[in-house]
């Protein structure tokens, strides 16, 4: 990695420092500090933080295409969910004969539906490395095919947003069908263990938390590397003046396609880390509203900063957890209000606010 990746990125430096501190502190406070101590961090909180971190990775992926490439994807939830399903399938296969029906080969829902054998697309998911490959490959290939079609015929702006939304909507409808072989309405759940580690144990939870934190760091650095490289300059040029970039001689479609695909792979990884921590994946993850919510995290945190996306994801989700607990009715009001206020008053998001302060100081 080049030296310049984190150069001139104060926000990013602070963010990575904080993240590193949290990643070091939380496991210690959870595992080493006794449960009755005020400093103890409960496993519930660890899992919650881990979940937020997967969201943060997802937000980074969206910020890469929206902030630096100008593609407002309203379908990134689909890539996230596909990664999640790939992981979910692995976890389902790991249950083995410990399911309700005790079938060593078929997951419970297939036995329930009277299926006799495992469908072809479930083959191989009992092997971790295969599932891990699929976590990246399935969203990646989908994004590649979709992007190849869309960018080649120069579908841009709002049209692109709407067809990405249609994509995730179509997938949601498809995954709701029992015939698809992904558990239909109920999705995949009742997971037992991952690589032999019990998913309910504190140590595994902490492990997943650390894995999520590492994934966020990795994703952040990778994206940061892309946007500070020459490739990043081109993507920003495409964002600001697509036709001019094309006239200069850059193959705009190719740049868009590869960055979009990379972003989808990141989203898939985030989904794969998300599923074992929440313990369920169902077609609701494909719902268009989820994808829009991701965009809002990025908008609130601040576009084209990457660390802003993380900030937005963490803040909004913390707010969601807090508000739905305290006054469930108010959450949608708050979220809706945030959308309106941020777009009207804070077009640069919170990161923009911080940067302005820095500039005036």
């Amino acid at each position, binding site marked *: 990695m080049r030296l310049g990746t984190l150069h001139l990125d104060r926000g990013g430096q602070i963010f990575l420092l904080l993240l590193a501190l949290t990643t070091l502190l939380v496991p210690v406070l959870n595992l080493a500090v006794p449960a009755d101590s005020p400093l103890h961090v409960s496993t519930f909180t660890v899992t919650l933080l881990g979940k937020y971190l997967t969201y943060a990775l997802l937000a980074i992926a969206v910020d890469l295409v929206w902030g630096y490439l100008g593609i407002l994807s309203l379908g990134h939830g689909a890539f996230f969910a596909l990664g999640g399903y790939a992981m979910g399938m692995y976890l389902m296969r790991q249950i083995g004969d410990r399911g309700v029906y005790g079938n060593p080969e078929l997951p419970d829902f297939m036995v329930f539906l009277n299926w006799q054998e495992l469908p072809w697309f479930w083959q191989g998911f009992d092997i971790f490395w295969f599932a891990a490959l699929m976590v990246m490959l399935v969203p990646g290939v989908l994004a590649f095919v979709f992007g190849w079609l869309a960018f080649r015929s120069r579908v841009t702006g709002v049209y692109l947003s709407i067809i990405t939304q249609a994509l995730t909507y179509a997938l949601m409808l498809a995954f709701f069908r029992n015939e698809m072989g992904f558990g239909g309405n109920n999705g995949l759940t009742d997971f037992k263990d991952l690589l032999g580690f019990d998913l309910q144990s504190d140590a595994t939870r902490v492990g997943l938390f650390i894995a999520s934190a590492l994934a966020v760091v990795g994703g952040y650095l990778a994206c940061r590397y892309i946007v500070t490289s020459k490739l990043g300059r081109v993507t920003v040029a495409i964002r600001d003046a697509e036709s001019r970039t094309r006239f200069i001689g850059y193959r705009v479609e190719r740049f868009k396609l590869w960055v979009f695909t990379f972003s989808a792979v990141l989203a898939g990884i985030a989904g794969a880390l998300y599923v074992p921590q929440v313990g369920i994946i169902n077609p609701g993850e494909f719902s268009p509203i989820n994808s829009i919510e991701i965009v*809002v995290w990025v908008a609130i945190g601040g576009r084209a900063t990457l660390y802003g996306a993380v900030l937005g994801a963490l803040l909004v989700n913390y707010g969601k957890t807090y508000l739905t607990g305290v006054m469930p009715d108010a959450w949608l009001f708050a979220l809706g209000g945030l959308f309106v206020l941020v777009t009207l008053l804070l077009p640069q998001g919170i990161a923009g606010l911080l940067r302005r302060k820095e500039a005036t100081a």
Partner: protein
Amino acid sequence: MPTRLLRSPLSALRLWLLIALTLCAFAQAALAGSAEFEQGIELIKTNKYDQVEEGVTLVASSRDPRAVGLLAALQDSDLYLRKADGRLFIATRSDAGYDLIDPLTQAAAGVAGQRDLKRIRINNRLRSQLRTAVATLNLTHPDAVVRLTAVNEMLDRLDADSLALLRDLAGEEKNAQVREGMTAAIALADLEAEEPARRIEALDQLEGNLHPAVQGGIQRLLSQEQDAEVRAAAEHVLEAIQFKRDLYGFAETLFFGLSLGSVLVLAAIGLAITFGVMGVINMAHGELIMLGAYTAYIVQQLMPGHIGLALFLAIPAAFLVSGAVGILIERGVIRFLYGRPLETLLATFGISLILQQLVRTLISPQNVPVANPDWMSGSWQINSVLSLTMNRMYIIAFCLIVFTALYLVMRKTSLGLQVRAVSQNRAMARAMGVRSARVDALTFGLGSGIAGVAGVALSQLTNVGPNLGQAYIIDSFMVVVFGGVGNLWGTLVAGMSLGVVNKILEPWAGAVLAKILVLIFIILFIQKRPRGLFPQKGRAAEG
């Protein structure tokens, strides 16, 4: 005459007697009829087979309007004597025991337990007599609709008695449809005639008849027919019937498709204005539809007992409510975001969340019931294959009316002219003295108002709840984008064709898969023609 069908000379005799009496009764005075009716009831009360049989004959010949109900009840073994006073009642089983209806007054007469009642027994002879009597009464009913239903029911289970009855009545039947049914029934029986010529003649008469019994009858004939000529004729007729059935089946699919398309067009047409003409991505569009549906609900609540009138009043009310909310959104949020479509998308999505939650908090998180007026239910039965339901017909008509009205507004009024001018070239329009800010607000209000009107229509078709709008927002965008932005005709054609395609795919793909296929089709279509079916031409189209 196919003698096989007549079981005994005795039953034929009884039948003739019955018909003779029934036909005589036409001329009898009402008073005499009612006297006969009561006399018949007295005989039925004896609960002895012979006397009950006489009583049935009397009741049938009385031509009293109460007779059908009484005889049908006896046929279904629903006729009872009350042990306490020996009175006759039609009893139907209910939670409390038996609900009694006095056959004389047709009034409810309280409830009785099983032990208080004694059933009027019937035997096979009585049963067949009753079947004929009920059929005769229905077939000679003054109302043609009742006669037609009776004939159609008889087609399904023809026997010697009913056939003899039909042969007798067919000549005198005035109503063409009923007569057609009767001749079809007779022809169906003639398929079993001895002489091949008569079978062919019968086949000729059955040609084009769509009643399922006819198809079944001819298929049965084919399975055992030896005569080559008859076979050929039967195959020909069967083919013709199948073709006609397919044709009507397709017409029905088309009709369903058009009605679904109308719903899509209604939902999308407001968006065609705000998104298509103004270029504003209004994610709250679905919630404006929802507000319209809730307006219909509230107007109905304010006017209990006037469901139909409330629905009519709800149309302008919904236009005003949604229109006003739309103008508020435009003035409060959207006007600060012109030229930034992606931000507009986010802000309006926020508004849609707020509106949804507002309805949940103020009214109810559950679905609310919106009543349908009587004239919306029912259907128009064209033949036994094709029936058009009224609510779908009204939706198609309503969609066309709304479309025409909107089209006229955009084409013939000065507002429409200004809207088109601003959408094509804002700066030039301003230079010509168009107050573009005012036009923006009014256009947005118009599009939102139309969404509200669509909501009233949807309230008659689907559940009205806080999530109503979300179900339609993606479909609406698909329709507008597919049709070509800024083109009302495009929206109409796109909506209707998507509706029809969806319904054509449904039988072999299932509803959900059909929808997915349509979505994939649109996604691919946009790759091919990014500006829709009917793209806007000229320099204004280059973004």
